[in-house]
């Protein structure tokens, strides 16, 4: 058996040097072991030949080195041997580190996970207490990490509390930060840290108050905050009493008679409710009223998943009204029609047709955004005929108020809403159609259709037809 003596429990460099020498000398894992001890570092019970005498120098992947650095912080006694066994096997099995289902790899990864968890818990459970010395205030914590993670974790506290002077004392060693340099020192004992801090009473008050006695789940708590940490957590002293009282506190809440409702408050509230409701008999007398009233519309279910009803925008009286299908994702958020991608296409086309958008009343056939959630996005869905019919109430109100001479409908839904019958836009496109109120409708495609044409040449041609339709409008105004 070959034995390598390491300088300390976390002596990674020593282990690395020894393991390298072992492997180069061809010493099998069963014949090698590592011990932390006094004596001189790097001393072997049998002298090792230099690397030159063994096999050629070798390299290992970074994954292995990083894993080894973590595993060595684990408190288990055989961690050095495990990592040497892996190092040895890497010679034959180059892909070994990727086979995380391998017994040794899985074992090492599990230990690395425990170390990482111990480090995370140290970030969480260190509790500083304030002290004063000749340089002013400073902060001291006593902590017992479950693995040897002090040096690994101290830089976290340096980054977080850069402008505080602090020490963390543990049975493995100590860390000190004076505002300039991070230093490590000898193991410490609990009595070297302050015994109290006046703010702790506030912290305990908070801890007790934020606990909800009606949902006791002590197992979950213990899983995340294992008992071994409790003795250094000031708040943990409260746990037994909080648990013991929880049942009584919950029963008291459940059994207590409900207070009489405040009559005056109830009256005020019922008035608020009544004011907000939508009334079928209501006739909006201006666009502002209409914009507010549509928010209470329940004529179809589309309001439920939409943010808001989006009414038309433009001058109070306009010679030209453009009707689209429905608000899209962006319009739904902004509360204004045609502000998304299709709106940009429309704006550019209007400009090319030399129509000022400020002179146009732009609106939609359906006022709420019909869609289907897909992860973090919302996919457009075409409104059903019943929804278009239900929403015509609002479009008609807009037409009554704005009194346009010409109405351009974009796409089939808009044509259906304006003409009141199903329409094949491609067949009836471009020819003015007389409407009952004396206005004339001109049918064309929806700009989002232009966005969906994949082929560039076809897209350009369709766009030209769209602009031509808009130019035609000018002759009708």
């Amino acid at each position: 058996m070959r034995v390598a003596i390491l300088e300390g429990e976390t002596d990674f460099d020593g282990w690395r040097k020894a393991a390298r020498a072992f492997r180069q000398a061809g010493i099998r894992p069963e014949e090698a072991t590592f011990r932390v001890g006094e004596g001189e570092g790097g001393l072997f019970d049998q002298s090792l030949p230099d690397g030159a005498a063994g096999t050629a120098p070798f390299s290992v992947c970074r994954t292995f080195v990083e894993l080894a650095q973590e595993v060595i912080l684990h408190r288990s006694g055989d961690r050095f041997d495990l990592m040497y066994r892996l190092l040895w096997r890497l010679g034959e099995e180059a892909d070994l580190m990727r086979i995380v289902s391998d017994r040794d790899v899985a074992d090492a990864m599990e230990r690395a996970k425990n170390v990482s968890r111990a480090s995370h818990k140290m970030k969480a459970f260190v509790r500083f207490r304030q002290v004063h010395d000749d340089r002013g205030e400073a902060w001291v914590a006593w902590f017992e990490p479950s693995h040897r993670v002090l040096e690994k974790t101290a830089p976290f506290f340096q980054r977080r509390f850069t402008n505080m002077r602090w020490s963390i004392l543990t049975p493995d060693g100590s860390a000190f930060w004076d505002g300039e340099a991070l230093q490590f020192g000898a193991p410490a004992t609990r009595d070297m840290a302050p015994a109290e801090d006046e703010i702790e009473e506030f912290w305990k008050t908070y801890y007790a108050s934020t606990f909800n006695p009606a949902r006791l789940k002590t197992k979950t708590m213990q899983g995340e905050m294992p008992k071994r940490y409790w003795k250094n957590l000031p708040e943990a002293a409260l746990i037994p009493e909080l648990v013991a009282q929880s049942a009584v506190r919950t029963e008291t809440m459940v059994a207590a008679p409900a207070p009489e409702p405040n009559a005056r408050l109830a009256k005020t509230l019922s008035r608020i409710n009544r004011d907000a409701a939508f009334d079928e008999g209501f006739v909006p007398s201006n666009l502002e009223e209409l914009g507010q009233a549509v928010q209470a519309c329940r004529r179809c279910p589309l309001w439920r998943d939409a943010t808001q009803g989006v009414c038309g925008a433009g001058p109070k009286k306009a010679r030209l009204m453009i009707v689209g299908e429905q608000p899209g994702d962006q319009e739904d958020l902004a509360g204004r029609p045609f502000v998304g991608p299709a709106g940009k296409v429309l704006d550019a086309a209007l400009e090319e047709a030399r129509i000022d958008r400020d002179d146009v009343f732009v609106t939609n056939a359906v006022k709420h955004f019909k869609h289907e959630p897909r992860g973090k996005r919302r996919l457009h869905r075409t409104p059903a005929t019943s929804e278009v019919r239900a929403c015509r109430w609002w479009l008609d109100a807009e037409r009554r108020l704005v009194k346009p001479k010409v109405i351009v409908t974009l796409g089939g839904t808009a044509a259906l809403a304006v003409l009141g019958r199903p329409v094949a836009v491609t067949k009836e496109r471009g020819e003015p159609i007389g409407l009952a109120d004396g206005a004339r409708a001109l049918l064309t495609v929806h700009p989002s259709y232009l966005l969906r044409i994949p082929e560039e040449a076809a897209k350009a041609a369709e766009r030209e037809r769209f602009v031509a339709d808009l130019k035609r409008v000018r002759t009708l105004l």
Partner: protein
Amino acid sequence: MAQIDLRKKLSILADAAKYDASCASSGTSKRDSVGGKGVGSTEGMGICHAYTPDGRCVSLLKILLTNFCIYDCVYCINRASSNVPRARFSVDEVVELTLNFYKRNYIEGLFLSSGIIRSGDYTMEQLVLVARKLRTEHDFRGYIHLKLIPEADPRLVEEAGLYADRLSANIELPRDEALARLAPQKSVAVIKKAMSQVRLGVEAAKPGKRDRVKPPKFAPAGQSTQLIIGADGAPDTEIIDRSASLYGGYGLRRVYYSAFSPIPDSSSALPVSKPPLMREHRLYQADWLMRFYGFAPKEIGEATTDGMLDLAIDPKLAWALNRREQFPVDVNTASREMLLRVPGLGVKSVDRMVSVRRYRTLRLEDVARLCRGIDKVRPFIVTLDWTPGGLTDAVDLGARIAPDPAPVQLSLF
């Protein structure tokens, strides 16, 4: 009114804030206090500094600025008609308390909310004032979560986004009709509009490829909301649909589900009983299935009874038992999407299997090492050395996998 001492105030205002489930401190921009004059850091992963016996994590100092409130939301402990003791912090008191707690490493930061006093604008102004003081006067670089007062002026929301990591407005009741009935002064439409503004703000703050100057930060940890479970009669499917709609519409990072819990001095309009904790747990699982496992709300709904998820088994297992024709799947050839649908396999396990199988054909023991428990997985998979045979279609498969009825939890002490 008599001056009550700070500890009493803390007790009242923490108690008043605890029914908001959110306590996350993760997912914000990375920063530390190097080169600054204050304290604080955020490094991506959230940290839970303590756990209370209700199993909830304590990551932030979660308090209300005041629990005085002009609203009368029936489900809320702070509603105007409740007789709970009232208190109000000054802005400086909250700032001091936050810093004092932070320096002792008790917390990751502050989660500040408030009852509505005077007006939405005034209340929001006070919340923003606390955040501004922490950030600008004390150079505090820890985490700040501010509650949005939806009725407040959009300019205040904009300013809140400059200082806060996360903003949230709670929908609270899954059914809009219930909100109108139980919280008459609140409006879903107003809450959704506030959420829209946050989504647009977050999107505007993402630097474009061509931007030379980065746009100012806006709530880098995004927004979240909360739904109360069991107060308004909405079945699980309705809640899941509502969540999907909120995730899709407003880019929410999280929807929190909070089992309706008895509160002191509760209203007679609501059920007073033990909070439906298992139901809450199943909803979280369903939420995860939607966000990380590629399940559509409809698919989760397939395995419900009267719109309710099975309380005895998790929703993925329930789905799989219903869709046995899809199983068993061969772990050595199946797509990642299909592996994610195997009961008992998590995202991490699946990713590991997909990576390992490039080098080695998986055996049952390999799969066992890569997942948490093989018993639940076994009937649904094929490996090099295992095939479930008739087990997949066994009539009593559900009973075989589902654990015995939960043992009555023993008291800790």
